[in-house]
């Protein structure tokens, strides 16, 4: 079992002939992901690696291939349009890897995908993986192994670090989801926690947050109020200088400066185990997994 993607995931890759798109498509295919179509306007009719048909538009690709998930590797100025194209095409999950999407673009995109009930992951995220079943995005497959832990994180390489530690210690994962660190993203911690709580195979959750915003605090309250499964959390940025990103007005609106200390305190108050170091996840999770 897993969340968001599994062995039935049928993927269309937007920007399949680009540098990043072609590299990671090969990686995903190697991992076993069903890549059923690619999109590059003007290359419709060709094929990728002699196996994956390429289309001019996502809607054509989805109609022809039955794809239910789209992943986006297109340059930032075109990413917002690519997300909306995917959301309008009929897929139910859109994963946007692209980094550097203007935030005002995302205000439109967010409204658009919500109206359609489509799940967006990202932008500026590493995607997700359900070990042994499917991988969509750029998370290195070999650091993961199937098992009972759900992983959700705002950052890329920090996720890898934690997953690597878990796997090294023999603790596998149901799914690892990178939600991305941009100010406006499609899926937040709560969405993932909800999914993990529902997934019978997930027995414990590892959550990696960062300074900025209040997503982690809201997630903590959600854990306290709605969840039965154990959660272990970490916040990166205790030593980061304050006020580099959003300035003061942002803190006023959110009612919080979004510091690591605040977030850790809220974890503690809501019964979330706090990992002081990335490597502490191993022992904390182990202690919370049901004994077999």
């Amino acid at each position, binding site marked *: 079992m897993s969340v968001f993607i599994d062995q039935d995931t049928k993927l269309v890759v937007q920007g399949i002939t680009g540098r990043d798109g072609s590299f990671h498509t090969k990686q995903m295919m190697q991992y076993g992901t069903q890549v059923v179509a690619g999109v590059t306007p003007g290359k419709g009719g060709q094929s990728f690696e002699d196996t994956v048909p390429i289309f001019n538009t996502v809607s054509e690709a989805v109609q022809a291939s039955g794809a239910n998930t789209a992943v986006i590797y297109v340059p930032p100025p075109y990413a917002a349009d690519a997300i909306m194209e995917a959301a309008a095409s009929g897929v139910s999950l859109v994963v946007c890897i692209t980094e550097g999407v203007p935030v*005002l673009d995302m205000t439109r995109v967010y409204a658009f995908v919500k109206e359609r009930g489509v799940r967006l992951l990202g932008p500026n995220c590493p995607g997700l993986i359900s070990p042994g079943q499917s991988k969509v995005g750029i998370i*290195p497959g070999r650091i993961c192994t199937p098992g009972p832990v759900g992983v959700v994180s705002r950052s890329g390489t920090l996720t890898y670090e934690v997953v690597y530690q878990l796997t090294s210690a023999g603790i596998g994962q149901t799914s690892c989801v990178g939600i991305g660190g941009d100010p406006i993203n499609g899926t937040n911690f709560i969405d993932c926690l909800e999914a993990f709580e529902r997934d019978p195979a997930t027995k414990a959750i590892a959550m990696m947050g*960062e300074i900025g915003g209040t997503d982690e605090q809201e997630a903590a309250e959600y854990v306290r109020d709605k969840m039965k499964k154990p959660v272990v959390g970490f916040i990166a940025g205790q030593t980061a*200088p304050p006020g580099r990103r959003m300035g003061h007005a942002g803190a006023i609106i959110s009612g919080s400066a979004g510091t690591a200390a605040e977030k850790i305190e809220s974890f503690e108050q809501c019964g979330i185990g706090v990992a002081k*170091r990335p*490597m502490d996840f191993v022992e904390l999770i182990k202690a919370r997994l049901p004994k077999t």
Partner: protein
Amino acid sequence: MNLHEYQAKDILRRFGVTTPQGEVVTTPEAAREAATKFGGPVMVKAQVHVGGRGKAGGVKFCTTADEAYEKASNILGMSIKGLTVTKVLIAPAADIVSEAYVGIIVDRARKKPVFMVSAAGGIDIEEVAATTPEKIRYHAVDVRYGLMPFEALELGFFLYQDAKLARAAAKVMQQLYAAFMATGCSLAEINPLVVTPAGDVVALDGKMVVDDNELERRADLEALRDVESENPAEVDARNHNLTFIKLDGNVGCIVNGAGLAMATMDLVKYYGGEPANFLDIGGSSNPEKVVNALRLITADPNVKAILFNIFGGITRTDDVANGIVTAIKSNPLKVPLIIRLTGTNEEIAMQILKQNGLSASSDMDEAVKEAVRLAAAASGGTAA
């Protein structure tokens, strides 16, 4: 990217906001000339990218042109929070009946641009929020519709009882919103928005922060960048596609990915050390980036040990290893180097390092501990 007050005002003026037409000068003489031209009393305002320049003495009221000369002499060259003032704005001083605050920011939680307005303007909006939060009104804008006239008027009436002023303020809200959207901002502020004795609604100060992600597609915005007024090391880093923030510690950190970079700095602190910087070499590695990163770090005399922490995903660790070897060949390090590498092409990377007399760990915890230990030893040593 922060814009200067004068740049923000130029943009606001283009969108119809009334704001005094000042002049940016770089010498006291020019300040006097400008003040003479304006005639009446003027403000001399430091153009630097930091908050609190008023409290730091960077904003002065002058009744005469000679006084403007004198104040400009004091302010030009002054250092405010580490940044040197090279430009001052000379602007006609305005008589003021009341001061309000109007700002827009992109709000993470609501996923929308949000207006904050308050009739208690002029002072720090943070203070208003902390002491009298009921004096602030928030309004989230649905970007699909934009700021609608009725919404702008509601905000206008929150600021002013008088319908004429409320309508004028509503117009300013729409102009500010248009400027905010067209300029790809993450923040835009008018503080204070004042009413003059003649009943005009005027922006006396303007602040805009452009979303860095807009700059790639917007040469017109990139052209507003004032490189002189930024930290040179951070400019250098940006020019090489690195994200760099200078700190006060002695452990230089070079990491791929912002989350892992912060976690690494936190771990340095955890083991009793102090990070000297935040440095993210980003996703797609190439040896050149590593060379530039090392150049930036070694330029800081505080750095007593250098720690690489690379988790290869898209980043190829062999690229990083090659970068390290290239850099130290041409410019031998004077401080210890601790390398942690794992992930994509790890074996090749280890081989490259070994051939060049370097070693690496694959364990983050070990590497951080070692870096902290070596930096402490070096600091102790040099302090002797």
